[in-house]
Structures are given as structure tokens and as C-alpha cells.
């Protein structure tokens, strides 16, 4: 009997009412005892596919969160494991990926916009609106004062060298794309990401 099942399909088969013990007797049940415990723990969880955020192997991960989907109920991530279907990682994670849950819930996560005023030794919480208004004002003042339309040789350069921007190679392509689009429209040239170092 040639049946190819992934571990995922195996769970689905189990859920459809087939006795897992008889599946195991057919000889294609991987680690039946552990699997059944894991399934129980995750039964009511929401499963979300994602990619490990650390290195560029790009291991597939499954994020499990709880929350019944009702209005005002927020999902809370409580378990992350490797995606067994992923052709590179095949369910594995390294010591970094195995700790992803602690990154999500790290005490070092920031939660609110803050400002540290000149000369101060503390943070102050501010609103998004205030933070972005103040930053936009700083940018405009500097750009209007220092944007170079023509250089000393009279060549058109239209660039802004006095504010710079480091972009994040841990962020998505979509974040990278919109960042590039905005930064260049302002004329910035002191612009790099981690690929520079």
C-alpha cells in the first residue's frame, strides 16, 4: 500500500476519525506517542506560517497562537516550531530559532513611542502623532536648509546629505521597498542597510 503522508496530513487523517493506532500498524506513523500529545496541546490553536527572523537560511516556522477570534480578543503567541513541509529546514530549527518565542515576548520589546530630550537622562512617553510631527519638522527644516540642487561645479545633483538613513535587513521586502521609495524621493544619499557591513 503506497501512501505518502506528511506529518501534517497524518494529523488531519487522525482528526478525520481514523484510529491512529491502526495507522501506526501500517508503518507510516512518525513518533506516534509524541505526536498525539503535541496535537492535543495545539488542537485549538491558530496556526500561522512564517519564516525565521534570524539568519538567511529562511527556515519555515509554524506559529501557534490562542484567541477565539471573537471581536476584541487578541491572539497571543504561545508556541513556535519548525515547519516540517519546508524543503530546506524540514521541521528543524537551530538554537536561535528554538528561542523565537522568547524574542516575541522579550522584556526588551518596546511598546510606546518615546523621546529623550537634549541633555536629558530619561525617556518620556509621547504619542505617535507628536513623535512623527516632530520628526517631520526636523526633517523638513534640515532638508530645506541643506538640500543641494547644484554643486560647486554647477552640476545638478538634487541631493540631501545631512540626514542619513539605515534600513533594516530584518524587515520585509515591502518595508524595504516603501522605505527606499520615500528616502530617495527626499533626495537622501547617506542610505545603507546591514549589507554594507
Amino acid at each position, binding site marked *: 500500500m503506497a501512501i505518502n503522508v506528511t506529518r501534517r496530513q497524518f494529523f488531519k487523517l487522525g482528526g478525520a476519525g481514523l484510529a491512529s493506532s491502526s495507522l501506526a500498524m501500517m508503518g507510516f506513523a512518525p513518533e506516534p506517542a509524541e505526536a498525539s500529545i503535541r496535537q492535543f496541546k495545539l488542537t485549538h490553536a491558530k496556526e500561522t506560517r512564517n519564516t525565521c527572523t534570524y539568519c538567511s537560511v529562511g527556515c519555515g516556522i509554524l506559529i501557534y497562537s490562542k484567541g477565539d477570534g471573537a471581536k476584541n480578543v487578541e491572539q497571543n503567541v504561545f508556541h513556535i516550531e519548525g515547519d516540517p513541509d519546508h524543503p530546506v529546514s524540514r521541521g528543524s530549527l537551530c538554537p536561535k530559532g528554538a528561542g523565537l*518565542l522568547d524574542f*516575541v515576548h522579550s522584556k526588551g520589546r*518596546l511598546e510606546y513611542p518615546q523621546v529623550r530630550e537634549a541633555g536629558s537622562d530619561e525617556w518620556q512617553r509621547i504619542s505617535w502623532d507628536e513623535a512623527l510631527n516632530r520628526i517631520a519638522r526636523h526633517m523638513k527644516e534640515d532638508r530645506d536648509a541643506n538640500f543641494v540642487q547644484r554643486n560647486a561645479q554647477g552640476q545638478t545633483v538634487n541631493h540631501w546629505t545631512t*540626514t542619513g538613513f539605515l534600513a533594516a535587513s530584518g524587515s*520585509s*521586502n*515591502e518595508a524595504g521597498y516603501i522605505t527606499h521609495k520615500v528616502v530617495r524621493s527626499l533626495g537622501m544619499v547617506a542610505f545603507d542597510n546591514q549589507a554594507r557591513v
Partner: protein
Amino acid sequence: MTNHWVDIRNANLILSMGGNSAEAHPVGFRWVTEAIEHNKAELITIDPRFTRTGAVAQDKAFIRTGTDIAFLGGLISYLIETDQIQREYVLNYTDAALIVRDDYGFEDGLFSGYDASTRSYDKRSWMYAMGDDGFVRRDESLQDPRCVYQLLRAHYSRYTPDMVSSITGIQVDNIQRIWKKIAATAVPDRTMTILYALGWTQHSIGSQIIRTAAMVQLLLGNMGMPGGGVNALRGHSNIQGLTDLGLLSQLLPGYMTLANATEQEYRAYIDKRVKQPTIEGQVSYWKNYENFHVSLMKSWFGNAATQQNDWCFDWLPKLERPLYDVLDTFDRMSRGELTGYFCQGFNPLASFPDRAKVTRALSSLKYLVVMDPLNTETSEFWKNYGEYNDVDPSQIDTEVFRLPTCCFAEDEGSIVNSARWLQWHWAAAPPPGDSRPDTAIMGELFLKLKQLYQQEGGVFPAPILNLTWDYKIPAEPSPQELAREYNGRALEDLVDADGNVTRRAGEQLAGFAELTADGKTAAGCWIFTGCWTEDGNMMARRDNADPYGTGNTLGWAWAWPMNRRILYNRASADLQGRPWGTNKAFIWWDGEQGAWVGADVPDFPTNSPPSQGQMPFIMQPEGVGHLFAGQSMVDGPFPEHYEPFESPVPQNLLHPGKEQARNNPAARIFDADREALGKPEDFPHAATTYRLTEHFHFWTKHAELNAIVQPQQFVEIGEALAEEIGVAAGDWVKVSSNRGSIRAVAVVTKRMRPMRIGDRQVHHVGIPLHWGFTGAARKGYLINALTPFVGDANTQTPEYKSFTVRVEKA
């Protein structure tokens, strides 16, 4: 990577050099062990240390840091002199037979055209010689003394085993044994893959080290082959994507480049980048540059970009210096020339060299904006953390804004892995507190700026006011909208030569061959075109089928370009289009179908028969791989060994007494930073920095599990050095360079042994980089207190892998 992770299993030999993948990329490394177990492959590591990769290698050698070109250059000489090259491949698929101009030369460690006052080359002579027919001259016999093959042979004839040994510290018998194993992959049915990482990149000669590896692979016929290639094992999860999208000072998306100030005319800018074939009939794909460029400008500036205004050519900034890289920027910043700076998921206080200089630079800003999920050191550079950050906040007038962002689990979108796969991911939960995605922060910030320019006017507002912004929720462009935008779409109906409509206006494009230079298409990143087509989001595909058994899963996610998994794969077949070996069959010419077929998307015009004579390296104007770099590098058409700027050895043994040729003559170093270099007599130990498997840069010290398994900062020293300085395992040591010092616990190990280099014994010191003054792990010192402020001549990537220190008991 030219190839991909799973393809490593197809290799017969794996050379791991300039990296330690078992430690830094453990899950990817499983494909190395797969090759060893199931393909009888051999793994060779060459590293200053006995690493985790070395621990499972069948053969290994220990090399002095920064001397890889000496080892690989000697290998090139060995391959040529012993005639162990893939001759048919080298003759047809490389530039070996091409003739170089008579005025090109190399003397006393300098290439022709050197100007010592600017530390740069006039590269005019670094060119092939053109014939009367307008195409490059060639010599099929490879005997002409001016052909690339003979110039290559002459250049590396100096790299004898004895010379290589005295520079690298590897014993001659070890060198020759490993060269012999590598040479055995010159046969058509065996391949070597090369795996490298920042251990090659972070040197003042980093780009040239990598080039030497590519040259070796061309000579062995290993490029374009399954189980071959030159494979950069990249760092961050989307560092490939941000490189592809061009978020670097001189780039535009898809490896297009900004104009220099001297390029005032649109037509001249385009003509310089539109590469016409220099050998008759070759593909030379960059001849389509204008299609890509105009489509980008339509994507960004929409109806404002017209043929009449040169598609808004003057709206993009022009460059007045080759790069506005981070070393240049922080040097300017340290002199008070910058007003503001943004750090989006980037921690420069920890990541950039000469931390004291970085602190000075940040302190001179008027405003600093940090966007990050985590409390980074950079965001608190102004805060006193005692010995770990000894600053006085009252003396620092920088206004610092800290904006909380989502992390991966709360974010939707795609990221590009090292193998060029764009993989889509979904958000699992909302972010903590008021954190927001980077896309929304950039969106709202831009709209606020635009509003200020609308209300108040200001300098050169046109590009801001006309930037396309047709997102459904303007302050929060969605990942789907942005992905569709960088893929590109038709703005008008596209028609073929017979007038048939091939694409309706508004439809997503299926590939970059559809792009046009007449304003009828828009695409934000041409190499990504094909990732979100009329069939939907190709990046979200999850079919892991491998129908040819080559490890190629074309239905999983989407790889640029055009879903190709191995670059240059036309080279996996011979001139007649047949696989070089049955065990290496990958793509081949099917005469009946009149097409290239096989396990991958051909990296070649699908219907171009072998008889047409088009060669595999379709991005090069000659159609062949370059052993001679021409003008594409700033520091020479052939790689040459130069010492690190801080070296334990006082001279370059290839050029004794030639001070100009001691370090890379074309590398930029600012005067104050040159003065901050240490001398071997004060700082005798060769230092190198690296990562540990439990940690990722400065992120994981914020994750409790990782902080628990690797809590304490340490440095690695060998037993001989420990004895010399009277240190026992577990003692605290002080490590100093001429720029600063750190304290750490000493791990005394057999993994590092002293090397005999010329007249002296050299000890290496290993410095892992993961600690700092924020996070859950024990506080530690940012190791960039030590590193020098000098970078690679081509990329300005700092020389973190080779510098000098002194270690003493703390």
C-alpha cells in the same frame, strides 16, 4: 548564493572558507552533512580556528586571518601549471582566450594607472583589446602572451607553495594536499561548492577574496553546475532582499545605479549602463537597462514621469562621491556635518567600527530616530551604563526618538533567503502596546512631510508631491499593495509585433521581458517581476515536489530571477547542450521541442539553440565568465594579496620593501583613522570576530532562552598564548587595540594554535560579538571598541575579521 541550500547535497567536495556554517547556519549546514553521508562528499575547512564546521570536516587547514587570496591565488597557479582545468569549459565559457590591451600591466604590487595622491586607479588600460570588427579579439590556442589565460598564469606564478605557506601559515604539505583534492573537481562529472560568509567579506580585500573563489570555480567548470557555485551564506533573514531592493547609498532597485554628478544627461546615463554585446551575437542582458529604469520611474512618479522630462531623471539624487557608505557618513557625522539620522532595525553603536568614534558622531546629531522592536544600545547611546557605556547625558544634546515596531510574528510580507527565494509570511498576532509595522511608520511619516511641503512650500518639493501613493489606506500601505507594485503592471495595453494585445492595461506582469522603455509599464524592482502575477502571489506557493530528484523545488515560494534556482545553469551543459555528466544533468537542449528543458528554469533564452553560439553568462557583454575583471573592481582586474591594515606582520611578503603595496593600495582610509592603527610591536596578536550558534548579533541577548544558554561574554585564546601571558581558563582578560579595550572571560582552548609567519610566531584571538549593555544576558562590552575604521576598497565593508590587539590578564 548562485545555487541554493538544498543543492549543496549535490556537491562532491565542499570548501568552507571565510565562514563557519555549522555554527552560524546550522540548519542549512544539514545539507552539507547530507552530501557527506549520501553523496560521499568531502568537506574541507580553512579557517584560523578549529571550528564546529571543522570538527566534522574530513580535511582542514588553519590559515592566518586575511590571507585567503594567497591560498586561492596559489591554487589558481597550481591548476594552470598542472593542467587541471575543465578545458572545454574554460575555453568556451570564460574569457581565457580574450586578448587584453597592451598597456595593462602589474608591477611592484600595483596595477597600471595608479595615482598615489588619490589612492585610486585610472582603469582605462584594464580592458580587452578590440578588433577591427568592433568586437573583442581572441586567441583560441590560449598561447598569446596577452590573452587572459597567460596573463593569469603570469600573475599567479609568484604564488608558489613556499610563498603561500609563509604568508598564510599553512604548512606546504597541507597546502598541496588540499589543492590536489580541489583540482580533482576539474573533471566534468564532479563539482565543488564553495561556502563563505562574512569571514571573506569583512576585509579590506574582501571583494577580491570572493572574486578569487569565483575564478577558481570557473577554471574548474563548477559555475552553473548542480553542487557547484560560489555561495554567500548571508546574515540577516532579509539582507538579500534589501540588497536586491537597492537600499544602499549608490543603488536603485534591481542593481541599477544612481547617476554621478558628472552624468548630467539622461541619454548618456542610460547609454553607459545599456551594455551592448562585445562578442557578436551574445545576449548581454543589461542591454535592456532602460526598460528596467523607465519602469521604476513610472512606478515611483507615475504620470509625472514622461519622455519629455526624461522620466524625472533629475528627481533622483546624484552622487558626488563614489559611495556615501556608513564609514563615510559616520566620519562626516563625527565632524558635525550631519543633522539627523534614522536607524530602522539597525544598531550602529554595536555594529560599526571604532565605537568611541561612533559615540562622538551620534552625540553631534541634532536628532536621531530609532525604529526597532527592541531596546537597542544605539537608542540609549546617551545613557550612562557605567564601564559599559561611560557617557554623561547632560553633555549630549541629541534629541532621540524611539519608535516601537512589529517583529516577524506580527508582520505580513516576504523576505528573501540566501538562495534568493522570496518566501511570504503571515502575521500571527498583534504587536505589543502601540507598536506599528515599518510600512505604516514610513507611510505616515511621508504623508506628514508631504503635507508640510503642500502647506508651506520648501526646497525642491516636486519628487515628494508627485510620489505615487495610491494605497487604499494612505497612511498604511498594505504588504499586498507594495508587493504588487514592485512586481509591476501594464499601464497601457501591451501589443506584440503583429499588433496583438499581449497584456491588458492594469494587469500584473509575468516577467521582466514584458518591461518597456516607453512608459507603458511600471515595476518597482525588475528582478522581482514575476513574483505577483495575474495568477496571484507566487511567493506564497508551498508545493515542495522535486520531480527531477535534484533538490530543486520550483513550486516552493519564488526565486529571482524568474524562479531560477541555479544561476548560469546553461553552463551545466556542454557546447552541444548536453549535460557534462549524466549524474550532473540539470538543464539541457531538447532538439524536438526546440527548447532548453530540465529541472530548473533555464537561465538563458529558452529557444536559443546551441548552434546559435550564445554563451551562458548572459549578464556579461561577452557572454562568458570573467577571469579578468576588466573595470568592474576598483582595486585591480586580478586579485592580489595585500596585508590587513592592522597586521601582525610588518610587510607584504609578495612585495617586500614596497610600502605602497603592503595594504590594499586602493582602499580608502581617513587620516585620523590611519593614525589610530596599532603597530605590531604594541599589538602583536591577530584578532578576528565572529558569531556563536546560540546568538544572532545583538538581538538574542534580549531572548531569555538564548541569554540563559550563552550568558557571559568571553574571548578565545590558545593554550600557548595563555601560558605566555599567565592566564588560566576562566580568568578575566583585558583585550586592547589602539582604539579602545574590553574585558571578558578567557576561554583557553586547543582550538587556536600559534602560527609561524616569517620571523615570528603569531597568536590568534577570537572575539565573539554578541554582548552589550541592554537585554537579558549579562552586561558586556561592545567589541567594536576595538575594531579599525577602514573598509573593503570596493564596498567599504569594515575590516572586522583582521586587526590586531594585545591580550593581558585583567
